[in-house]
């Protein structure tokens, strides 16, 4: 069995009286692509922010490679080998591509002085690696001049710089063209092939179905379904299930299967 990279145990998060997450269990093994699906307000973003260390859970436990973590923060999350490509891409648009790639992880020499030459060199290597083909931009171009897809590229370049074990992609294909979406898919497969893991969050169930090894459906702060690829016959199955969750009483078959699966875990 593959190594268990990260495990969330009974994670809850409430904002005042509003529950965003109510006892979520989620795990990601090495080398697998987990697709996280859910409607708006299902708690996907909160879950990602907890993994990224930006939001602290109200209760629950986070285990990295089997060890429970303490003092979880964004910096700790990145140190633990988790990189997140946020939905809004988390870029500082008035800064250069280099500054964005090394945001919070500046390459420094003595006394915190930047290794500017090395940063530029690494940034151009990363840009080549992710197939950033435009020759119009240099690593010192301002991110605000880039298109949406190119900005996504910068966010992804930042995520792969440290050979992270787990890359979280939050709605990576939203607002991207077909070719750009294809690039993202290619990237996901590359990462999996290199033995690293991806948590892929998507609205587009077809996209998630195409790429993921395992599916987790969130609904109103709880895991409504956790299924391996073999258990889901087609993207339509997933869509039906989602509809069923949203409007109970519909197609019962998979729902029951899902519940049984959930109970078994």
């Amino acid at each position, binding site marked *: 069995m593959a190594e268990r990279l990260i495990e969330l145990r009974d994670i809850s998060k409430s904002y005042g009286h509003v529950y965003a997450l109510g006892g979520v269990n989620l795990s990601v093994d090495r080398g697998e692509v987990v697709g996280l699906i859910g409607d708006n307000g299902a708690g996907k973003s909160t879950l990602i922010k907890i993994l990224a260390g930006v939001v602290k859970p109200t209760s629950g436990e986070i285990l990295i490679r089997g060890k429970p973590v303490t003092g979880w923060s964004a910096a700790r999350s990145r140190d633990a080998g988790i990189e997140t490509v946020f939905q809004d891409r988390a870029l500082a648009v008035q800064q250069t591509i280099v500054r964005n790639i090394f945001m919070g992880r500046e390459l420094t020499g003595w006394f915190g002085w930047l290794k500017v030459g090395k940063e530029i060199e690494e940034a151009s290597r990363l840009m080549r690696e992710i197939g950033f083909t435009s020759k119009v931009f240099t690593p010192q171009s301002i991110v*605000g001049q880039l298109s949406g897809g190119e900005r996504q590229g910068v966010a992804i370049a930042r995520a792969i710089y440290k050979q992270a074990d787990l890359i979280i992609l939050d709605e990576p294909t939203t607002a991207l063209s077909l070719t750009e979406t294809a690039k993202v898919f290619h990237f996901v497969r590359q990462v999996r092939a290199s033995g690293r893991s991806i948590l892929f969050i998507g609205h587009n169930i077809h996209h998630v179905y195409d790429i993921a090894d395992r599916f987790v459906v969130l609904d109103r702060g709880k895991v409504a379904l956790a299924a391996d690829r073999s258990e889901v016959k087609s993207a339509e199955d997933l869509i039906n299930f989602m509809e069923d969750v949203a409007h109970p009483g519909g197609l019962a078959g998979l729902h029951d299967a899902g519940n049984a699966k959930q109970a078994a875990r």
Partner: protein
Amino acid sequence: MSKTMEPDLQNPLGNSHSDATRKEWKHPSDHWMRRFVLDNRAALGTLGVFIVMMAVFMIANPTVFTTWYLYSSVLTTLPVALFVVVPLVFVVTCGEIDLSFPATMGFASWVFAVVVQAGYDPFLGIAAALVTGTLLGFLVGSLVVYGGLSSLIATLGMNFLLRGLIQIINEGKSTALTSLADSWAYKIFSSQIYGIPVQIFWAIAFVVLSALLYNRHRFGAQVKVVGDNPDSAQQMGIDVKRVRVKVFVFVGIGAAIAGTFSVMINFTWWPTAGDGYLLPVLASVFVGGTPTWGGIGTVVGGAIGAVTVSFIQTGVVAAGLSGFYVQFFNGLIIILSLLGHKWNQARYR
């Protein structure tokens, strides 16, 4: 920043890697001069404004503007402003503002005056002033950042509070420090070399070091990112609050240096020390080309802005106009500079 123009701190001799990299990203803007102009457009714009203004002054009154005395008097007082303008560029870049620096100048220089008057060496006084400035900066920064207050209002309040404290304790009385004239500290920090006030060299060193800090150091990089997009900075693991407190501490240190210099120049500490710097210093930052919205800025531009602002006052009077014109020209230069910068730099979103 152009590699051709700027020394690479890591590889002072240059290396083949970066050359190869540059070839692959060949682009018209790779020409060092074009890049230099693009990277420094705000500072160069400010320089342009300054040159035009000086040209107008010189045409208006050539005799006064070719005498050294005029420049010598500007160079005496300008350094005091530079020590606060530069840290303020960091604060504004970080998306904050600090209006408490005049009181910090007064407070830190008061500590300096007390130590010197008590008969201790002025160097000890400078050290005490620096500690005071650091602590006050930390206090103001913590209040804004951890108290979650608006920096505009909170620092304005701190300015009144600290100034009031100075006035209450001193009952409006000044301190004369005649013994300073014979001290080593005075010779090193405030005398003249070949008729040039020595403090300008210290100020230039401060500007250069700060410009490097701004462009070539992790601190500057994080200040810019925090001012640009604090949420993203936090998501990428930057301790946003800490960076914000640090910029206020930097202003505190700069204000302490500025206050101490102003006392050494005048041999006297006044309870109002620093008060007159509030508006000219703020104007210098924005005339210099640092925009109000945070994320970007220019230290060198701010310094040129300070030079411009301090020449307006001297220049208007020297050009033969009455002192009534000073405010008018101050305003004119500020508005023209802002219009220039607006046209000169785009805001990316």
